[in-house]
């Protein structure tokens, strides 16, 4: 599904953010990505949703080397990836319903189906009374739930979520994690970047940990399993769902 091979990343001559990162996410796996603020979690996700290119190394997505994906092929690849951005990235003049409906409209889904499914999902994330609300009139937590609904509405093959529970209380955070697990059970590969340790401990999924620009695989029990330069195979083994 996703494979990184010796990936280095830095922005415009700045400090190295990812150093020799190698790992693999198996199809249907569920992982947490942890690390302190500025550890490079968002950058790692950005490389996966084709929002940036590595300085060196290879990133494979859906068995394609992303460096060889033509520009015209990227939209179709991106439609297979649902992304919850840390800053939500909602379109400010569109209602909650229209923001969530965007991936479906881009995919050419019939309006009748959109009118049926989008309110259902928004109700599931607790926003049934805010279908027509503009993002600016909603709280951070509510905006985050819209962003999550937008990321999952198209049933992506890969779901990348950057601090998806950062602005919601624990009760909603758990509910959202259940949503991600449901999606995972339907076959979606899930990677959630978070620094919410209690949430990570509560859900029984393997963890990738970023520290000092290097990636470490951590077992479910919390033991560090490999070094940053570990082989792809080792990471892949850890990536299999429990």
């Amino acid at each position, binding site marked *: 599904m996703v494979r990184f091979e010796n990936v280095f990343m830095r922005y415009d001559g700045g400090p190295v953010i990812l150093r020799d990162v190698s790992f693999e996410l198996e199809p249907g796996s569920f992982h947490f990505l942890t690390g302190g603020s500025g550890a490079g979690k968002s950058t790692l996700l950005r490389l996966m949703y084709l929002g940036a290119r590595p300085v060196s190394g290879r990133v494979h997505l859906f068995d394609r080397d992303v460096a060889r994906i033509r*520009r015209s092929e990227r*939209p*179709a690849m991106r439609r297979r*990836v649902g*992304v919850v951005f840390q800053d939500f990235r909602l*379109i400010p003049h569109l209602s909650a319903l229209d923001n969530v409906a965007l991936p479906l409209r*881009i995919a050419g889904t019939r309006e009748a189906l959109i009118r049926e499914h989008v309110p259902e999902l928004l109700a599931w994330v607790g926003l049934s009374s805010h279908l027509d609300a503009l993002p600016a009139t909603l709280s951070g937590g509510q905006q985050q739930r819209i962003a999550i609904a*937008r990321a999952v509405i198209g049933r992506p093959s890969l779901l990348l979520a950057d601090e998806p529970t950062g602005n919601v209380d624990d009760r909603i955070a758990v509910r959202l994690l259940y949503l991600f697990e449901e999606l995972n059970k339907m076959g979606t590969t899930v990677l959630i970047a978070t620094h919410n340790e209690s949430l990570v401990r509560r859900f029984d999924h393997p963890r990738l940990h970023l520290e000092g620009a290097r990636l470490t695989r951590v077992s479910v029990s919390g033991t560090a399993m490999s070094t940053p330069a570990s082989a792809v195979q080792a990471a892949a083994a850890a990536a299999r769902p429990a």
Partner: protein
Amino acid sequence: MWGRNDLALARDPSTRFLPGLLAVLVYLAVLAAIGGLTAHGFVESWDQRLAGTMTVQIPPVAGAEAEASRETASERREAVLRLLRVTPGIAAARPLPDAEAAALLEPWLGPELVGALPMPTLVDVRLSAGQPLDRGALADRLENAAPGTTLDDHARWLADAQALGRSIAATGLVVIVLVSLAAVLAVVFAVRTGLGVHRNEIEILHLIGAPDRFIAAQFQRHTGRLALAGAVCGAVLAAATVAALQWTAADAAAVSGPAGLASLLDAVEFGLRDWLVLAVLPVAATLIATLTARASVLVSLARLP
């Protein structure tokens, strides 16, 4: 064209000038096109009117000689008419009555001069269809019959009129091309500004999988709406202007009479072809604007990494 728009293009001030500009451009284009077509039609109509005709002009006999012998002038006219009527290729020769000739010249010379000046005798000649006429030989024989008589087959006048008509038509075409170019540049400018203003939303759309054509369609629809509104306004204004010009020409023709210059303009009718131009140009302008918007967005987005 009327689908939904996920980018807030309607709130974008950079495109608000488009309908007004398109209205002005379409107004100019319609007038230029109708002007060009009218000039072409005018020349064609004169070409048809003058085809198969000639005018023979017998000059007055100058000074005391003419007063002394009116019979000489009459003889000269009769000699010319006899010659014309027996010449193969000529169907009819009709001398223009003095009053009719005077009426033709009166608008140019004034009634006083027309009465005072010696007038040439004009003979309207109709040619037989399909029967060749040796114009050079006829001119020589006319000179022998009545010295100073000239033969005018209108070729020079028609050539000048045709050249003028072609120039006006070409100018109309140039105006249309320039107007189209201005419309294209205006749309390109508006679209590029719009792309800059909506950069963030476009990035979001890209990141969630929107292809360039999805974004281009949004600009295309928005530009199409604005262009159509402007183009229709421009065409309506142009139609009103043409109607006003026709009304003015008809009014002037009624005052100046059939020999007046205004009667020439009045004779040019606003026909089906002109209505078609009125209908087609706004649609063409809308199409040009829409396609330019699409192409401009696609070219700009293709440059993104």
